[in-house]
């Protein structure tokens, strides 16, 4: 049974599925607040379809992955190892981290890049409730006037944005939904 979960649930047609998945991921990262569907894989619980597909699209033996909280199960480790070969590391070394907001925190554990190489920072995949275009008000690159997105912790995201051009970048996943928040976005609470 374990073996079947470990080997199944990957991309059916890797080059095409990954191309579609990347286009969705790139679109939401380029347009903060936009919500897209992201499908193509069937990851083991508790990973959402969107989070699992994103990991298969971006991770390989060159990327270090941190499984936070409830996502760090034997089955998830086996599944990711079989499909991506990515090594598992603590939060402080991670290129990608996945988990609920509470399990991922605090943010200061993650790499934020260096002044010469701000790209060497962690990307956090935040699993959560259904995504909505409300609560936080977003402005900045990729946004025409203002955008809206339900964020788990506006204060922490504002502190991260204040580090610009350093800082972490975020994907938010729920079921087959995905949205993103790059460090370049200015955030304020609605109202």
């Amino acid at each position, binding site marked *: 049974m374990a073996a079947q979960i470990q080997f199944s649930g990957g991309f059916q047609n*890797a*080059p*095409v599925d*990954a*191309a*579609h998945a*990347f*286009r969705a*991921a*790139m*679109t939401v*990262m*380029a*347009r903060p607040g936009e919500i897209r569907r992201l499908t193509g894989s069937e990851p083991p619980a508790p990973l959402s379809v969107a989070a699992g597909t994103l990991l298969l*699209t*971006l*991770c*390989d033996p*060159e*990327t270090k992955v941190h499984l936070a909280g409830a996502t760090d199960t034997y089955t998830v480790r086996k599944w990711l190892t079989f499909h991506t070969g990515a090594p598992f590391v603590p939060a402080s070394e991670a*290129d990608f981290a996945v988990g609920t907001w509470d399990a991922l925190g605090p943010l200061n554990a993650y790499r934020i890049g260096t*002044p*010469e*190489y*701000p*790209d060497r*920072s962690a*990307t956090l995949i935040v699993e959560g409730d259904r995504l909505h275009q409300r609560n936080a008000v977003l402005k*900045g*690159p*990729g*946004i*025409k006037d203002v955008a809206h997105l339900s964020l788990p912790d506006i204060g922490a995201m504002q502190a991260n944005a204040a580090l*610009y*051009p350093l800082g972490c*970048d975020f994907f938010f996943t729920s079921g087959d939904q995905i949205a993103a928040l*790059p*460090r*370049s976005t200015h955030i304020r609470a609605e109202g």
Partner: protein
Amino acid sequence: MSEYNFAYLDEQTKRMIRRAILKGLAVPGYQVPFASREMPMPYGWGTGGVQVSAATLTPEDTLKVIDQGADDTTNAVSIRKFFENTAGVETTEETAKATVIQTRHRIPEAKLRDDQIIVYQVPIPEPLRFLEPRETETRKMHSLEEYGLMHVKLYEDISQHGAISTAYAYPVKVSGRYVMDPSPIPKFDNPKLEMDAIQLFGAGREQRIYAVPPHTKVVSLDFEDYPFEATKAEHPCDLCGAEDSYLDEVIMDDAGNRMFVCSDTDYCRSRRAAGHVGRLAEEDAA
């Protein structure tokens, strides 16, 4: 063709490029290093743009490739054929029908939409490179936001020529932070850098990828008393009569005759198809 992996590159290379694109979008204008691959074409022929396009394309995309605005020059034709063979995507010469546009040194005249992606081929991604040859120093200058040298260069233009003589690859500041080389587009195209489409830049030999998300503030560097000017030849197009498009000058004979034509061949063709006629178009038809 099933002999190739979709869009030529192997999946691990595409993942590496895709991660660089995402970081580039998160820090607009910052040059992300990437492990550029050998491509089946020489450096300088758009290997950076080709790798970015290969990592971006899906089978449903329609690809347009332009070289200095033209769809029918060697570079554009060969890259279009490359992706027809290796990715099996549809190709087009019409800007409006394309979903991904790879370009060398121009931005199309037609306004790009939010469902389009434009990929620039970049020879020298570092705007400070001709002022400071050391990569360690230019990295430090970017990290400290130390761009005084670039303003000195533009000032020297004015003191020597009476105006900013930089006509292409005109430096811009992106989202108020990074100074960026927009690739060798004419400065006429600089105002179009604030657009609805996603802009990706690939430099193969120099191994850098950078990006400008839609609606990002892009400011051409200038001075209060010498403001930036998007210039073009002071003529209408001799084939389609357009007064608003960037023009190429073509020498006609050895008696000094010349003509000006739209550099964007698709724009010129669509205008002529709509009945617009320039100074020399009727002679052509005769």
